[in-house]
């Protein structure tokens, strides 16, 4: 299965991936309308310390701990892709505790959100990958 991987050697900590992600998942057609003067809720986040930086999002683990920890049955796995049903999520944060990567976070409405590889929005290919100016985020089979 194709997954998103990061090449931290090429990450510039420009944070564009976060903005493209939040835009892609806003459901809006206009980036300005989606993001201007609003708090940002991206599903990918750049971790940075000193000169080292890289983007972190869901690894789509083959044995996902978030799925096992979910008390509401909101997280499911389909063909390797781990998705969250936000209608079922009760916001107990168990998945946040379980995920070793910190890849789940509360959405604007309070229930959890996570990277679904842009398979569940209208963009098709992950926009963080498309938007990265230095190929520090790649979408490939490994």
């Amino acid at each position, binding site marked *: 299965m194709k997954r998103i991987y990061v090449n931290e050697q*090429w990450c*510039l*900590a420009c*944070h*564009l991936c976060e903005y493209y992600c939040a835009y892609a998942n806003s459901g809006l057609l206009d980036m300005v309308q989606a*993001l201007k003067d609003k708090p940002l809720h991206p599903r990918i986040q750049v971790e940075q310390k000193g*000169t080292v930086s890289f983007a972190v999002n869901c690894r789509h683990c083959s044995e996902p701990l978030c799925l096992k920890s979910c008390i509401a049955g909101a997280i499911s796995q389909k063909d390797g892709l781990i998705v969250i049903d936000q209608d079922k999520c009760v916001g107990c944060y168990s998945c946040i505790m379980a995920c070793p990567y910190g890849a789940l976070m509360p959405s604007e409405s309070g229930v959890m959100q996570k990277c679904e590889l842009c398979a569940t929005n209208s963009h098709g290919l992950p926009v963080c990958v498309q*938007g990265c*100016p*230095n190929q520090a985020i790649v979408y490939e089979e490994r």
Partner: protein
Amino acid sequence: MGINYLYPDFEVIRNQDRCITCRVCERQCANEVHSFDEATGRMKADESKCVNCHRCVSLCPTHALKIVRTDHIFKENANWKGEVIQDIYRQAESGGVLLASMGTPKDYPVYWDKMLVNASQVTNPSIDPLREPMETRTYLGQKASAVTRDTNGRIITKTAPQLKLEIPIMFSAMSYGSISYNAHKSLALAAQKLGIYYNTGEGGLHEDFYQYGKNTIVQVASGRFGVHPGYLNAGAAIEIKMGQGAKPGIGGHLPGSKIGEDISKTRMIPLHSDAISPAPHHDIYSIEDLRQLVFALKEATAYTKPVIVKVAAVHNISAIASGIARSGADIIAIDGFRGGTGAAPARTRDNVGIPIELALASVDERLRQEGIRGNVSLVVGGSIRSSSDVLKAVALGADAVYVATSALIALGCHLCRTCHSGKCNWGIATQNPELVKRLNPEIGSERLVNLITAWNHELKEMMGGMGINSIEALRGNRLMLRGIGLNETELQILGIKHAGA
């Protein structure tokens, strides 16, 4: 603060309706133009620091930014133009030589743009390169002037060492130091993929790049930085740099701040010491001296590699080239006055040297007249901007061309001409690791390959139009060129007729 004589050249125009304050402009500007104003929640800009490199413009996800030239003016004066006045202010302040980078921006005639190319109509057929063979491969080096036979009457096929080029374009010399590790790697990878050559420049060869040796030309300049037997033998050819088009008559100067650990090791000079190349080679004061160095280098490499002598295009270039052609050199590279540089005194860059088109035409003609054109191949550089420039250069007599500025532009350079500041936002002309990493060689090399491949397609199209199916048949074929808007002297030097004639 005192009196600030210099008003910022550019204005950063931010469309606040589009700005989403993602701050990518702030994070990506090494000149610290952009900042976030906590009080208003808006981005702001200090335009006095802007060099107009477009890094922010190119990365802004909502196209909220553009850079415009300020319309602030001095009182109009055809003689004392604003830039002239500003230069005087700068020098009155600093007491120093004005530094500049890349090729001259002055409005000198560009002869490539005053030559038109022929095409076949009715009486001779044009060729479709998509359906018929079309060769752009060429070989650089000394060519035998006559067929020779051994005692059994068999033709002797052993030739002087040659460089084989799949496309008559090479990346010209840019040293590791003037450009970054990643820029060098991009050039090396691209040269390998394209079957052409890149040139180390005078800064030696980083140990990581010895693996690209088959596609590398190693340079020996007046500073002899990083020159040792392993280096000479690592490349496919050796280039003696006598001069550079952007700054004929003077040597390079890489400031100590750029001589980090890797560069110090590669150049074999102490850490953080200024790398100053002498203006002349101190062992070369005549063609005979040059011959000694040519043969010293050939001796060091067992006569297996062609030796290139690179000179800047200056007055009397044809006599100089004639001397070089008799020195034992295999290839002459001539660099025109519009060639780029990582740093040069502005007055030298803008006033010294001659256009490459005129230099090439007169050198090719002179070598032919003297019957020594076959002794050497001719490579020209100094602002080759497109495939049509390549085509016209070949028709004027070049065997191949050198490109560097075009290659850097493909890598992202926006010709802001502040390489000498060392703060290249595109990761090209800098040694700051945080900036260098902005140029991913995977992306860079692909863009270079795309550019040269595209030019090769265009070359084939234009050659096909002329009914010529090999680049070697185009070489020196000046009947394929016509001048437009040129006077008699210019036409005579270029050796071409005027359009319509």
